[in-house]
């Protein structure tokens, strides 16, 4: 997951900033690990979008792997 991009076109916009989301390199962490991934975020406030399929798919898989380390 460390070098992956999960960027995809989305209709979601940041309501607070009235901005379309943009592909951004961010760091997500869990337990003692950090991953650099590309996700859609609001360019102004940084609100990060995690789509459902990512949360219940790859992300869950990595969480489970890390929990057994």
């Amino acid at each position: 997951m460390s070098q992956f991009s999960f960027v995809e076109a989305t209709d979601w916009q940041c309501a607070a900033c009235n901005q379309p989301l943009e592909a951004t390199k961010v760091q997500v962490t869990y337990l003692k690990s950090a991953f650099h991934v590309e996700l859609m975020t609001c360019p102004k406030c940084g609100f990060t979008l995690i789509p459902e399929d990512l949360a219940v798919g790859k992300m869950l898989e990595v969480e489970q792997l890390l929990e057994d380390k």
Partner: protein
Amino acid sequence: MNQIQLRELESKCIQEEYPFCSAACPIHVDVRAFMASLAKGDTRGARRVLDRTMPFPEILGRICDQPCRSQCKRVEIDAPLAIGRLEQFCVGATNTVIKLPKLPSKGGKFAILGAGLSGMTAALDLSRKGRPATIFTSSASPGGSLQQLEESILPGKVFAHAQEMLAHYGVEIQTSINMNQENITALVHEYDAVYCDLDDLDQSLLPFAPNTVDAITLATDQAGCFAGGGKTAEGSFSPVYQAEQGRRAALSIERFIQNVSMTAQREKEGACATRMYTSIEGIAPTAEITPGDEPAGYTAEEAKNEAGRCIQCECLECVKQCVYLQEYKEYPKPWIRKIFNSQTIVQGTRAANKMINACSLCGQCSVICPNDFPVAEVCRSSRVDLVETGHMPPSPHEFALEDMEFSLSDYCALVRHQPGTTRSSYVFYPGCQLSGSNPEAVKQTYAFLRDTLGGGVGLLLGCCGIPAHWAGRDQLFAETMEAFTKDVERLGNPTVITACTSCLSVFKEFVPNMNTVSLWNILDKVDLPTQTTKPARALTLHDPCTTREQSELRASVRSLCEKLKIEVVEHDFTGETTDCCGYGGLMQYANRKLGEKAVARKAERSELDGLAYCAMCRDNLAAHGRPVAHLLDYLFATTEDDPLSRTNPGYSRRHENRARLKSDLLANLWQEETIERPAHTAIKIQLNAEVEQLLNNRLILLEDLQKVIHHAENSGSYLLNPNNGHRLAKYRPIRVTYWVKYEPIEEGFLVHNGYSHRMILPEDQK
């Protein structure tokens, strides 16, 4: 768990013990595998099994005296397998399939005096091990007394074949030797060790004092001189015993040369006892198949059918019933080895974590196991170990522990004397799950107990702490138990009446001095309510797994059913062998799919609709789609609808029910107000049944949705889809980030979806 404990536990599991036939076989031929191959029509596969263990299959396969036959489990059903006849068929129909390897020479020189089957076997085994052996016999060719057998039983070609085999492994055979005293003495001195085959030597010429042969090692009073073969202890001539003696001698000679213990670990050489257990329940009797043409022996078809009668003896009694062991494709011996390896790993993946956390700790397997293998104890202590070493993964138990925390919080927990009194002879303890599942039953049961029992009946709402115990959180569990004990003390130590059998099992084990009694025992002793109802049809009774050791309680439930005139049909897995519904041990949280399999197993034990007296059993069986009522539904007519049709309330409703039960009871009985719940709980949420089910499976509570929407609407921080006006918001209360897709409606919000993750996003990293 250390190595010694591991071995002790491993030895309780007997699945790897010899089946009865192999144990009785002096050379432990894998008869079970032999039969399995023949039953498939794989005669070469069967021959492979013989080649692997038998020294001379061409000989032994034809004349084996089959001591295994009398031990065949089929003896108890109908007739034992015709093992000898099947061996004859196999060696008659095949040639050698595998030749065992010959190890490089390790030196030394060894003499075999006498060329009977034991001498030939000793020579063969020694040569295979790289110990050059020479056979000396006064006869013109090897075979000893076997040569006297008729050609129809043992054709001459088999001796030629045996000689070829011996030559292949480098055995030298010296025939027509004058075996006089002088020559024998010379051989004993010349060779590093000798073996005397008593089947093919003049007994007056033996180079050692008779009667000094050690039964275990075959050593004699002459160092380096071994002897065996001849007649068995019972005085008969047994070919397979001959082979075993030769094999035993070769092993002794190898140990003698290496100068290691001659006796250590030889218990399983030769015919031995086995601890194997095999159930013959449900196995239909079948007649032994006799060959149509007796002298010619079996045809291929006959052999296949006779071998097909083998029941493939093994134990697996626990695995047959347990969905958990089936899921992980293990029986306890390799299972515990996996756990041990996972627990002792220094770095890398703890591969057994999921397995450790998925067991329901229900103890059914231990009751079924002939040796009471303690799967549940091993799992629970492994969980404690994971917690104490900081390796317990957060996700399997966190939801259940937070649910427990909520049940124990001021929103749900309550300790009171009966309204208008200041002392309690009894206190009713419904438990967290009944309060969540069926608050109306709690209210009515409490009213009944107040009316029926004298001396004041207090009320204690809370959680016994069993989720913490199951999760291996021993400290949290101890704290919970201590707080509970103090609550009971504060009420003046009344007798605690529990509606939940899990609570009762916990109290009996951890606060044995406290007066506790099951609600069912109490109800069985008093006059029943007047407004009871009963189902229109017969039901099957589902005992909860925590009643496994509570026979008195189970009897009270049956007695109550009788008084209520409920027709109960017992199925085979009630009482001591009852199944868990998937909640036990927090199985359904650690492995949801496995929890579903567990409840499916429980439901499918009977085709009838069910009657439960554990709220979790009731709700899980209902979620599985099986009509099921709770016994209290009939005692107190808690619902106007058919109790069998009540659906599973799910986690969210159970959560809300507990809080509402407290506020209702406080208001109605004690005229008190409950502490106010947080602002987010005022948010009105609508969602369809499909979304509700999805969120339930994802362990997302209504209150989690409320927290997210409350946060989003107050901060204005959410995503918006301009095409349809849907909003997508997230919030991380503690360790989980919840996402909710919703839209505002006239009254509150309509939720379309929800999901969660544990990874921390940049904006939540502090």
